[in-house]
């Protein structure tokens, strides 16, 4: 009953892709958007945090230093060293660590109140990160195996000759297309979907509270509770995505470096 009445009163505008397009200065391809302001803010914040965390280093760490060390330790030991191997993981550590911190802080900005905008929900940002990883792991592979050798190393040895072209084609598609695209789309999709869910619960809850009958007002309150729960879930997803993208980048680099694919 009240749903029908609600539909007649005014239109509820569901959040969509247009929710994320928020130009601040200018318009079109070169506009300065909310996302670009947020990512600049994140770079400033990360630089400050890391400088403050490593300024007065001591054997017994201060709290800032301990936090920095824990973050560094996750990337260095449990991702880079375990996956790339202790021989040549140090070369890739700066890239992996800066990617992890950049993505983590930008993701966390999605739920930190005054900012509340996940930068990575605009496809351009994760795409650039994925392209960097794409270039790095291919260049590393070329350097290690040589130009021809790298393409040869895609196919595992010891296969019957008739199946080799098929496997080569599959591996080529995986290497050149699937990997970078999934890397970018996974981060984008998670941030986009999570944020759209929050926006839906909050604006929908507000709409039901303001315009609905008694039953819908209760539903609106429940919707706010759900928004709170989903915010906590988002926190988990944001950590997980930052971890996963670094993990996958390390895996791709390790794959390009491996003697046998």
């Amino acid at each position, binding site marked *: 009953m009240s749903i029908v009445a609600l539909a007649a009163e005014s239109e509820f505008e569901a959040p*969509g*892709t247009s929710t994320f397009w928020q130009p601040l200065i200018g318009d079109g391809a070169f506009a300065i958007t909310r996302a670009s302001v947020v990512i600049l803010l994140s770079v400033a914040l990360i630089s400050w945090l890391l400088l403050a965390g490593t300024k007065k280093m001591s054997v017994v760490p201060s709290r800032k230093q301990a936090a920095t060390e824990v973050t560094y330790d996750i990337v260095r030991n*449990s*991702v880079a060293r*375990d*996956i790339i191997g202790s021989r040549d993981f140090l070369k890739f550590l700066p890239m992996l660590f800066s990617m992890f911190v950049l993505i983590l802080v930008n993701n966390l900005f999605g739920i930190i109140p005054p900012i509340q905008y996940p930068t990575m929900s605009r496809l351009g940002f994760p795409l650039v990160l994925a392209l960097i990883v794409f270039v790095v792991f291919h260049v590393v592979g070329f350097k290690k195996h040589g130009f021809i050798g790298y393409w040869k190393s895609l196919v595992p040895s010891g296969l019957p000759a008739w199946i080799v072209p098929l496997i080569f084609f599959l591996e080529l598609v995986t290497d050149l297309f699937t990997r970078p695209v*999934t890397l970018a*789309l*996974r981060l*984008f*999709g*998670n941030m*986009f*979907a999570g944020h759209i869910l929050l926006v839906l619960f909050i604006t929908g809850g507000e709409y039901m509270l303001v315009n609905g009958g008694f039953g819908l007002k209760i539903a609106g309150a429940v919707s706010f509770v759900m928004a709170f729960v989903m915010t906590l879930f988002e926190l988990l997803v944001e950590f*997980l995505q930052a*971890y*996963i993208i670094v*993990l*996958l980048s390390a*895996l791709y680099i390790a794959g390009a470096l491996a003697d046998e694919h």
Partner: protein
Amino acid sequence: MRTMSGNIAILGYGLSAIGPGIGVGLIFAAYINGVARQPEARGMLQPIAFLGFALAEALAIFGLALAFVFR
């Protein structure tokens, strides 16, 4: 007669989420099983589990992206 309006691509997203849902469930079931049987293997299993999770989840993410592309 009331009519429904909307975008059928969203249903496509729902369909594309079924498979990854089952897949992610299986992956974490195996991970929990493994850790329960051999707790010291957690460090080795965790990256594998998350890798499998990320790969399975990618399909659902494609569905979501396409749902918004074809609107």
